[in-house]
């Protein structure tokens, strides 16, 4: 449920940007969301619908680019996508390290009229 607070902040950001460009309507918002960000896409979409109702972002399409968490096996020098079960390398079974990928929560761009 922290998505409400985060969605309201996202809305404020896009409204400020749209205002700076003297836009009359925001039609699309492109968001990048990592699977380790702890943010649920559907919750953001739901809260957005409610929070944006009386703004120029009302009805805007939310386009989510989902980023997967990648791990790196130091022994095999292999980068691979995290499986839901554990952090182990699919080749040697050893423990791997997290890379930076998967924690994203940012607005890439907006489309305005």
């Amino acid at each position, binding site marked *: *449920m*922290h998505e409400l*607070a*985060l969605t309201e*902040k*996202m809305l404020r*950001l*896009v409204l400020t*940007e*749209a205002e700076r*460009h003297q*836009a009359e309507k925001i039609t699309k918002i492109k968001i990048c969301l990592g699977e*380790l*960000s*702890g*943010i649920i896409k559907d919750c953001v979409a739901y809260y957005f619908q409610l929070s944006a109702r009386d703004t120029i972002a009302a009805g805007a399409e939310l386009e989510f680019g989902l980023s997967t*968490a990648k791990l790196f096996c130091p022994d095999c020098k292999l980068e691979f996508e995290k499986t839901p*079960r*554990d*952090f182990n390398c699919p080749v040697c079974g050893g*423990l*791997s*390290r*997290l890379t930076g990928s998967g*924690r*994203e*929560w*940012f*607005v*890439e*761009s*907006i*489309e*305005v*009229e």
Partner: protein
Amino acid sequence: MEINISRDLFDHEAELAVANRKLFQKMGIIVLNLLAGPGAGKTSMIRSTAPLLKQPVAVIEGDPASSIDTDLLNSLGIPAVQINTEGGCHLEAPMVSKALDEFKLEPNTLLIIENVGNLICTAGFPLGESIRVVMVGVSEGDDKPYKYPDIFQGADAVILNKIDLQPYVDFNRERFQEGVRTLRPGLPIFEVSCRTGRGLSEWSQWLERTIISLLKEG
């Protein structure tokens, strides 16, 4: 028309946290953000740790409702202020700076913020703390690092509480430790029991060393 923004939405939280950190520095206090699920033993940990430290301890308690923990700590002589989030699942930086108005804290105080019991949202909202501790009870299971990776990645130390219950629950220590150290290599893990006192001296010595080095850094 497409407007490029490319702005990390967690940046705003980071800016609010920086403002808090400046305030803490001005007051000369060290702040610890204590993160855990409900019932991991956060309040018991504060209660057991405070007498073992040379520094004075004060507490900000975050709970959706009630003042149970605050009343307990105040009755033990540990000054505590309650924040009720009215159902909110985490504390945010401005709530903490506001709660500070209710205290008169001496310099060198360790302020422990007992966050709302939650292993998800609390990870995304830094409060300006310089020490972040994640706590898990063995009865919660050894899979926590795999299920809640975000919270462990940002931690400075992990406390594994209720270690006295290990014989009664299926908790694989190795699996837990491997998970934690994949997320953050070298992270200290303290195995303690607030009930029996086991492991508390190692933990409190680490904490004291950390506080002293942070105070020296200013």
